[in-house]
Every structure is written in structure tokens, then in C-alpha cells.
């Protein structure tokens, strides 16, 4: 019981600290802006650790952060293999193929008004559906290995990308297009020099949405069958063995790789679309 009380006291203390920091004079310093969420995250972790030990929660229900960290440290090779299989082979290759395919179709649709008006509503309708349900079909077609996971990711990212790129290519105003025409610019130079740059905020919006979808698709597809490696495989088998520390270790790896992936796309976005109002501070 003492540990639980310690956890609550600690939470109260750190919360007061955060309130002080947030309302204090230094609130706008970068260090404080970064420090407050870090303190909050640490508070949660420490409370988790203390309460698990204080209430004697069994390992099979909720392992303590320390035992998850220990598990990560001892099974780095397995986690690395799973990461390569699911993230690099499944999610990343599917992401690249899906985005490239959507880009090609969007360019074709851009040339034909008829096709665009037909494709866009259908595309945004399909983008809202639970496409992750196609996983069993694609696993049946492409086998258990990473190819089927990449296929699921391709299907999942294709429609959000298509909708975003097509909408982005419509972004320029009539006056801008007329201006290009007065300079005697053809379709391709108009696309390349004006409309594609103008579409970049939309394209990156799609790329960011798809980056989170990709990992989800690859992991869920592994629930429908996989070789004996991969994050989804490890999660579902470890749950069966009640090795919840392994499950949490995989979740930590998934969280870090998902956040990094998103962060890298966001960083590239900042470099490419530095001129856009949303990037100014």
C-alpha cells in the first residue's frame, strides 16, 4: 500500500511542478516546452512501476516498465529481426509501391476531367472503409511472407494518397494557370514547375496519414498468417503464451518506429514546403 501512496504523492508533486512550469515566466523557453511533456511521461511510467509493485499485479496482467525494459535488453536480436520483417520488408516496401502507384494514377486522372470526377468520390469512399479487412484475402493470394503484408499496405495507402494528390493538383487558381499559359508553358512544365509544388502540402498530408496506416496494415496482416518472424506474429504468439513483457517490448518497438517514420516524413515536409503558411512560426 505504501508504494501506491508514494505513487499518488509523486503524481501530485510532479503535477504541481508542471503547473508551475506551464504558468511560470519561463513557459516559452524551448527547454521548458520540451521538459513538461517529458516530466508527464516519466510520471506515468514511475506511477505504473510503483502501482504494479504496490498492488502486486501479476506479470500476466500488466508487467512493470522495468521488466519490459529488461525484456527489450535481452531480446534485441529477435526484436531487430521482427522489425526488419514487418517494418522494412512489409510496411516500407508497401508504402513506397502504394504511394508511387497512387501518384501515377493521380497524374493520369489529372489529365482527364471526366476520370477525375468519377475517381475522386469513389476514392474517398473507399478510403473511409476498413480496408485492413482485405488482409485475409491478400495473405491467401500472396502467401505468408512479407509480400502479402506489402500488398495489404499498398491497398491501404493507395486511396488516401490518390485523394490527396488529386485534390492537391487542383490547388492552383485560374489566374496562376493562365499566367503559365501566357509564358507558353506546356502541360508538363506547368505540372512540374507550378502545380506539383503547389500540391506538396496535400501530398505530404497524405504521406503522413499513410505512414501510420502502413505499420498498422503490416501488423494486422500478420494476424492472418505469417512466417515465424515479424511483429504481428510475435505479438499474437506471445499473447498466447502469456508472455506479456514480450508483447509490450514489441509495442515499444512499434511505437518508436511508427513515431520516427512519421517524424521523418514531417521533417522532409518542413524542408520541401517551407513556403507554406502552416510551416511559418
Amino acid at each position: 500500500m505504501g508504494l501506491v501512496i508514494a505513487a499518488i504523492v509523486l503524481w501530485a508533486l510532479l503535477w504541481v511542478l508542471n503547473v508551475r512550469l506551464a504558468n511560470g515566466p519561463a513557459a516559452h523557453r524551448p527547454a521548458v516546452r520540451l521538459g513538461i511533456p517529458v516530466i508527464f511521461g516519466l510520471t506515468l511510467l514511475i506511477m505504473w512501476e510503483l502501482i504494479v509493485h504496490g498492488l502486486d499485479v501479476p506479470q500476466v496482467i500488466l508487467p512493470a516498465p522495468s521488466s519490459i525494459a529488461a525484456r527489450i535488453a535481452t531480446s534485441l536480436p529477435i526484436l531487430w529481426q521482427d522489425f526488419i520483417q514487418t517494418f522494412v520488408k512489409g510496411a516500407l516496401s508497401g508504402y513506397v509501391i502504394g504511394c508511387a502507384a497512387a501518384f501515377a494514377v493521380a497524374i493520369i486522372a489529372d489529365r482527364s476531367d471526366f476520370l477525375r470526377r468519377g475517381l475522386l468520390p469513389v476514392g474517398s469512399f473507399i478510403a473511409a472503409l476498413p480496408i485492413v479487412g482485405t488482409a485475409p484475402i491478400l495473405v491467401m493470394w500472396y502467401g505468408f511472407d512479407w509480400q502479402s503484408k506489402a500488398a495489404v499496405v499498398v491497398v491501404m495507402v493507395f486511396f488516401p494518397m490518390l485523394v490527396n494528390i488529386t485534390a492537391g493538383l487542383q490547388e492552383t487558381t485560374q489566374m496562376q494557370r493562365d499566367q503559365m499559359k501566357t509564358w507558353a508553358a506546356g502541360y508538363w512544365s506547368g505540372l512540374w514547375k507550378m502545380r506539383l509544388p503547389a500540391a506538396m502540402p496535400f501530398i505530404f498530408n497524405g504521406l503522413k496519414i499513410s505512414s501510420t496506416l502502413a505499420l498498422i496494415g503490416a501488423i494486422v496482416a500478420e494476424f492472418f498468417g505469417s512466417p515465424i518472424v515479424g511483429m504481428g506474429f510475435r505479438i499474437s504468439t506471445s499473447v498466447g503464451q502469456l508472455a506479456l513483457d514480450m508483447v509490450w517490448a514489441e509495442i515499444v518497438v512499434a511505437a518508436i518506429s511508427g513515431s520516427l517514420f512519421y517524424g521523418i516524413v514531417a521533417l522532409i515536409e518542413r524542408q520541401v514546403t517551407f513556403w507554406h503558411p502552416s510551416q511559418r512560426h
Partner: protein
Amino acid sequence: MRSIFPVLTVVAAILAFWYVACVPMNIHAALTNAERGGAVVTPEGAAARRDMGAMGLALSNTAQWGDTWAQAKPRLPAPHQVAVELWETTVQKKITSKRSLVFHGWITLSATLLGFAIGSVAGILLAVGIVHSRAMDMSVMPWAIASQTIPILAIAPMIIVVLNSIGMQGLLPKAIISAYLSFFPVVVGMVKGLRSPDQMQIDQMRTWNASRGQTFWRLRLPSSVPFLFASLKIGIAASLVGAIVGELPTGAIRGLGARLLTGSYYGQTIQIWSALFATAILAAALVAIVSMLERGTLLRMGFRR
């Protein structure tokens, strides 16, 4: 209205492509069946055909095309096969039957709706807290945004097993996953909405000597409604995904996710496709209902004329 004809054309093109794709996808099994039935196919013998390309086989055996659209366990079922299965398992079965998609759909839908309700109420409450407390904003908001990049579904199997071990089964574990998925879109959208009144409007409230509560109820809450509905639409679609994925890891036998899973175990492709379409229809219907509520509410509040 202008886009109805193009949309119909695109849909027709997809259906036509689908029928054509069925031929090479199913030709191997069709030829094996035909040969067993005594028909002459080229080349003879399943072993000779095994490594041949599906396109070549399809072109040299045009007589067997009909069978590729009528198999019991095709690799790719034809559209009408899926439609017939959907019709048979919804309209022609009693809704209490274990084979009725209405029955399975209801199992999933109930978890979806419960989870959506929990998730959106919790999300709105957290957003209200974030808007009113600087400390909460600075400490919780970065984590809420970061959590969007995490494959939340990875946690689903664990939640199911953990809740199962403390005696919770059935609806609630799935609803918790649904709630988790709809929670963050609602938080992010609602925070944006509650902050959407501009400085001039807030200053106006101040000149009227409005209290914090009055500013909240009369200005912030009404102006957040369009943002709320936009995130509710994302949230309810995410809830459905959550409920379906929540049915996968425990080998559940009821619900649309369970239909997908058992279909993939037993190679019942038509069952998978019909479950998939039922899911799609359900998702579209849920989003449409939220959009209708949105349109009605915004109209009454005077956002759109």
C-alpha cells in the same frame, strides 16, 4: 450531380475489370474441374499446367471461362457470387441464425457503438480540460499527437487477453479497443474546435464581462461543433476497425471480424468477401448517419445556409 455519370462509369469499369480478373485468377481450378468432368482442355494433366502462366491458360481454354465465375471456393469470387452470398446471409436467413450476417454485424456494431460513445465522451472531456488548463495542454497534448503515430492495433490482442484473465469477456474488451481508436481523433479535433473562436470574439465576450463558464458555453462550445462532427466521422470509422480487429486475436466465433478469420482458416473466400462488403456497407452507413446529423445540426445552428 454533375459527377453521377463519371462515378457510375468508374464503378462499371471496376466491375468489368473484376469479372475479367476472375478468369486468370480461377482458371487453374476451373480446368482441373473440367478435366475431371471429362472435358478436353489444353494442355492435359494438372501437372503440365501447374507452372504455366494463368493468362496463357485462359486464352487457350476460352470454353472454361464460365466456370471461373461459378466456383464454390474461387481464389477471386465474381461480383455476383458475393452479392448472392450477401443476399442469402442477410435477407434470407433468420437474424438469430449463426450464419446470418445481420447477427454477426450486430455483434460488431454493438461493440462499435459502445466504444464510440465511450471514446467520444472521454475525448470531449479531455479536450475541455486541455483547453482550460495550460499545464494539461503542455503535458498531455504532445503525447496525444505522438500516440496517433503508434500502431494502436498492436495493443488490441493484449487488451483482449488481459481483460479476459480478469473475467471480462465479450462486448466490453472490444468496445475498449474501439473507444481507444475513436478517442484521439475526437481529442485533437475538439481542441482545435474549442480554440477556433478568434481573438476578436473572445475580446467581445470580455467586454460583456462574461465569465469563463459563459465564454465556454456560449462561444467556445458552439463554435467547436463543426470540428467535432468532422472528427466524429473519422472516429466512428476508426471504431469499426477497432471492433473488427478486436475480434481477431482471441479466435472469436461471432462478429464480422470472426467471419473474416474463420473464412481465412477454411478457405471460404466467398464468406470473406461478403463479410468484407458487409463491413464496408456498415462503415458507409455509420459515416452517412453522422454526416446527416452533422448537416441537420449545423443547419439549425446557422453555420450553413
